[in-house]
């Protein structure tokens, strides 16, 4: 087996249980951790973290998988989060590759961007498909974003750990 294949295997062996753990936490524990009547989103933050540290390729792949998990956790029949989080993974990875400097503030910015765009998408969907009042939906989206950002701190260390162990991306 080549070194490259070994590297991919190691990454898969780390990311698979990480994703499963995140999914289980998201769909069980975090649904009970309501604050201001809002549940936090863990998977988008984790996806932003991997994209920030590992760049657009791994960001996109992880975003795809995390998006699938997010669709499952949200009982979504459609693949809204799969598409959205893949795109956001690539976008944040691209920003990290080109514009953003490495460090916690930039990471936080990446997470905020992912969460804001995720919330914006949800708010617009609710408005277009269900006619939900946009101000109320936006308030929910804002609370969701702020609450979820709290979890960016522990996930920062996990993402950085993964990056250092695998030497991913740049």
């Amino acid at each position, binding site marked *: 087996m080549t070194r490259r294949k070994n590297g991919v295997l190691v990454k898969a062996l780390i990311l698979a249980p990480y994703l499963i753990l995140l999914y289980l936490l*998201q*769909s*069980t524990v*975090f*649904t*009970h951790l309501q604050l201001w*009547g*809002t*549940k936090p*989103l863990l*998977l988008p933050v984790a996806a932003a973290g991997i994209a920030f540290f590992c760049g657009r390729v791994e960001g996109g792949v992880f975003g795809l998988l995390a998006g699938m998990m*997010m669709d499952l*956790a*949200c*009982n*979504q*029949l459609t693949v809204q989060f799969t598409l959205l989080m893949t795109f956001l993974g690539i976008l944040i990875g691209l920003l990290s590759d080109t514009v953003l400097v490495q460090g916690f503030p930039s990471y936080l910015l990446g997470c905020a961007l992912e969460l804001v765009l995720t919330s914006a998408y*949800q708010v617009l*969907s*609710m408005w277009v498909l*269900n006619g*939900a*009042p946009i101000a*109320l*939906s936006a308030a*929910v*989206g804002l*609370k*969701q974003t702020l609450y979820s950002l709290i979890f960016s701190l522990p996930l920062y260390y996990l993402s950085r750990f993964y990056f250092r162990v695998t030497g991913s991306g740049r």
Partner: protein
Amino acid sequence: MKDLISKKVLRIGAAAVLVSVLAAVTVALSGGNAGFAAMLSEPFFKPLKSALTSLVGSLEHVYDYLYRFDELEAENAALKKRVAQLEQDYREYTEISEENGRLRSLLGFVERHEEMTLEPATVISWTASNFSSSFTASKGSDAGIALYDPVVDEYGNLVGQVTSVSAASCVVSTVIDTTLSLGAQMYENGEAGVAGGDFALMKEGNLKLSYISDTASLVIGNTVITSGSGGVYPAGLVIGAVSGIAVGSSGLDPYAIVEPAADIDALTHIYVITDFAVSE
């Protein structure tokens, strides 16, 4: 300075040992009825004298006590085991008792609705989304559950509808979810309307009864039930009670705010209606 502190420490240590020995001896001699505090309340010399004389005269008793300690330790271990067993029995009893209560409630519902076939299931997980209200239940098409099957709690109150089903599980959208809408009517006066989720009300745990006639009499506390129209839901399932009356943004469309009868947040066991007699 260090020596001084060491001596102080030693003295404090010695004093502590002495006090402990005195306390232990006192407790031992009093058969556990009087502690060190009780001894202090006595005149100083009396207990001291008593303790010293008794100490010499009762070494055998001390030996007996130490010997019994092993016995007590063994007894304590056995009792702990017994307590653990009893706690386990109690947990099982509570579980069975709760299930019995649920089944009794369900029995009442089933007796009233013999035409229905119910499939019990449990709630596995709730949606992670802040923009919907749904959960995953423990049974799917293998148990005869199909898409759009109505779901009730043990009292027969409407919980929601199966909106996606796989072999071993299904997703149930609750009555407060914005995607759900069903024919409803007031139990008291038969006024018809459409019950459905509304995002603003969903965040408060309520739903909306709209498309009601201008002349309809809406009374707070009135019961809202399924009308059975469309054949998706059986008629007569309790949706909830009117908790408020409001008017839409146009000012022309009154609607009732309905508080669900099923305790949506506390759901653990549900019953999927897999078959029922359609009466239109």
